């Protein structure tokens, strides 16, 4: 059964447990940061930061919302980044879980920027030290032995969820119905196309410009973009 994350942003407190747990499991180094007038740090995803909680204040006093967005690769059902691959095996689309995994062969790719360019969510980054293109791999090493991804394991509030796709879709629908009582604008973002489904309490662009797929957010174009990728052969796992 393929896997899916369901991330309920109405329950995210931005404790950043997920951001730190990711670095801990992946043994990724901390970046040298400075406070830049925001609690969000590092400022952006990078070659050593694969999961980042973004902070955004919207509205005015009285109706202010402080929106938190733990950003990561969406593990698309039909990953557009496969189009960027020229070295066979640099991306593995795992059949069992649906995880989209970048391998060390990405270091041999002639056009590494193409990965980020191809991503509707602006996720892939280049690790300067190894030369590899990197992003969240769904903690596929953990998942294959029955563990939760590190970020989900650490979440205290139930914002981060992970499991079989049908169960996550059902949970997402249930939570959406609950959330709509308090947040009439609540919606599930790109649920049909991705394995990381966000429940947002307001317009996704308020959280971050690429929370929903780029190229006219959530419009027909997005759908078209996804449909264009349908029918392409799915790579099977090779290692």
């Amino acid at each position: 059964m393929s896997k899916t994350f369901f991330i309920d942003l109405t329950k995210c407190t931005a404790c950043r447990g997920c951001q730190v747990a990711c670095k801990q499991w992946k043994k990724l180094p901390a970046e040298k940061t400075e406070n830049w007038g925001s609690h969000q740090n590092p400022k952006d995803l990078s070659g050593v930061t694969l999961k980042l909680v973004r902070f955004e204040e919207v509205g005015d006093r009285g109706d202010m919302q402080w929106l938190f967005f733990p950003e990561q690769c969406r593990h698309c059902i039909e990953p557009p980044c496969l189009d960027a691959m020229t070295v066979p095996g640099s991306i593995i689309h795992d059949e069992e879980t649906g995880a989209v995994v970048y391998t060390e062969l990405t270091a041999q790719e002639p056009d590494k920027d193409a990965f980020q360019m191809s991503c509707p969510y602006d996720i892939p980054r280049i690790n300067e030290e190894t030369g590899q293109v990197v992003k969240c791999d769904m903690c596929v090493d953990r998942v294959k032995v029955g563990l939760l991804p590190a970020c989900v394991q650490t979440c205290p509030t139930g914002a981060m969820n992970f499991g079989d796709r049908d169960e996550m879709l059902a949970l997402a629908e249930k939570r959406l119905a609950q959330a709509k009582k308090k947040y009439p604008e609540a919606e599930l973002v790109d649920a049909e196309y991705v394995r990381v489904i966000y429940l947002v309490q307001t317009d996704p662009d308020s959280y971050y410009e690429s929370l929903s797929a780029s190229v006219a957010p959530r419009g027909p174009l997005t759908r078209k973009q996804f449909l264009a990728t349908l029918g392409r052969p799915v790579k099977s796992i090779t290692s």
Partner: protein
Amino acid sequence: MTNHWTDIQNSDCILIMGSNAAENHPISFKWVTRAQEKGATVIHVDPRFTRTSAKADMHMTLRSGSDIAVLGGMIKYILDKDLIFKDYVVNYTNASFILGDKYTFDDGLFSGYDPKTKSYDKSTWAFAMDADGNPKKDPTLKNPRCVYQMLKKHYARYDLDKVMAISGMSKKELVGLYETYAATGTGTKAGTIMYAMGWTQHTVGVQYIRTMAMVQLLLGNIGVAGGGVNALRGESNVQGSTDQCLLFHILPGYLKTPSAKDDSFEAYNKAYTPHSNDPKSANWWQNYPKYSASLLKSMWQDDDPAKSYEYLPRLDKNAASIYSWLPMFDKMEEGMFKGLFAWGMNPACSGANSNKTRNALSKLDWLVNVNIFPNETGWFWEGPGMDPTKIKTEVFFLPCAVSIEKEGSITNSGRWMQWRYKGPNAPNDQKPDGDLIYELMHEIQSLYKKEGGAYPEPITRLTWDAIATNGVFDPHKTAQLINGRFTRDIEIKGKMYKKGELVPSFAFLQADGSTTSGNWLYCNSYTEKGNMAARRDLAQTPEQANIGLFPNFSWCWPVNRRILYNRASVDLQGKPYNPKKAVIAWNGEKWVGDVPDGGWAPGSKYAFIMRKHGFGQLFGPGRADGPLPEYYEPLECPVKEHPFSKTLHNPTAIKFDDEKKAVCDPRYPLIGTTYRVTEHWQTGLMTRNCDWLTECEPQVFVEMSPELAEMRGIGSGDKVVIESLRGSLWGKAIVTKRLKPFSIQGTTVHQVGLPWHFGWTWPKDGGDSANLLTPSVGDPNTGIPETKAFMVNVRKA
């Protein structure tokens, strides 16, 4: 906590005030979120809009330091609209008690005030007594001198206009808060309060909590599932440290530290054992002599308690103004201390007024610093402004094992004692604290035995090997000693107990030296049945499952009771007020559910068994600063007067007259407050040394409103200097609408805030402690410094 983290899920209305729970107690939000899923309303009242506010159903801002006005207004609202849970108020609180003739209140001062000593003669706050020596009561609550009527009178001044003017909250916010929260006073709804250092760190901190406890009593919210008064403790084992009473005024189990006047064990017990003539009052503290004798017997096992009592040090006067943290460092600065153990503590950053604290350290002959990382305390002599060649203090640094490298227990906020096994060995033969203390005292004992001294017996006769096996500290033996053993064969309640057997519970402790117990509250935690704190069994009855109570998981003081004062959750027939979330219920023969507050049949004993008279104290005549909470300004404040009386500040607050305070001082026009973030802990010693956490929160920041930033020409991310009468530091500006200017008595007042997690040692560009700014003033009951409201200025660096 009267209740537990897990019990928050049972609440219908969660008031988070004086706390930023989502950020500083992230796991608490697991339970807050569950309550919300079931329809609970979460209200956050805070000077800032925080990550907690972002998740709350209602958020409202108040000026830091004005909480008693807001809560006093809530009491008035509840009384005016008669929203009390009357059955509970009459049966379980002292609302019906009649006050004695000497009690008065005039313009911010209670009767009995002595301006010379800045203290009260509390005997003037006594209740009127009947012929049997019990408090006179009027259950109709109509007597003009009864507590209920006195409350009405006292809080009549706390009207919406006055509260608005001093707190900066709007009428809509106040009414929304009062209406929503007071709706829990029905018996079938539960409201809870989650508070933390935002309430305790004030010169009226204890009275903040008193005010809320009174609201909870009026609404019938204490003893019930989803209710209570819940202090979110600042570290995993601070409840355990509190229970063991590592403070000046109390001994383990909240027994009193003897004063000079208590010149025999008999006199001591007599002075602190309350007496009630009412057979319906359980008056649990009547057992005081059993607990004090068992404590003494646990320490000096070869001496009679009457003799070993003489070994205890005594206070000249049991007063925070003499012995608590602030006066201790004040006296240290005057050169009155030879040495200091800073053990798992970093006072150079954690105490108010860091420059004073750091200077005080330089007056010591020696300083022993036990910690897992080098820190600003052990290295104070090379800190900012210090000249090492002029400092005499000899510093010893003892690196120790960290929590996972040792075995033992922690007691969490909800009073659960949880046993933890040992993980890896500490590197470089570093030792657990228990071993360090054991070996240190062992050596001191040897020296006194060899060399003698002025009065060596308290040390030489101490039964120190009671906590060790073959000369090595033994956490199990220590936990067993804290529980207690019988010292001889003895028959109690028809059953024989052998010498050396572990005491089953504190009901079996004796006053004659036949039992030991290092802490009576923990008697029942380690018995012949085993180490109760190590239990991880999830078995529960259907009644327990209904409220998510797991009595076989770990162990909770007292006697595994999970919700304190639970006899107040039922009526006088033992029927739960809220059957849907019953904590206990009388089934005709016995109680089911939680461990009841005493097994007596319903209605036969008053519910609040730890109070002398058996009632929850709306009128509380025991505190240093008054029997009813009263509004006073912080000792540094932006106003010359407030609307409730002409007494501007708490007249009993701890302060040092030679230290100036900024009251309406144009050089320091902004209110400052300090706080924590999720990513760092305390002075940041453990977290500043963890790269992933400093990556998230790398530097001191100063949060301010766009309005203030514009006035000062500051942009978000700019480096700024923040300064007070006592010191200054730099930080990075975070300009945000999450802070706002307040309108206080018609004047615009700005507030800024900064975290206190940083220190000059590491990271090098992180900044220094926010406590460089905070004043040496404190609460008269506890001595806790007022670090949540003080006056500062901010300018671009």
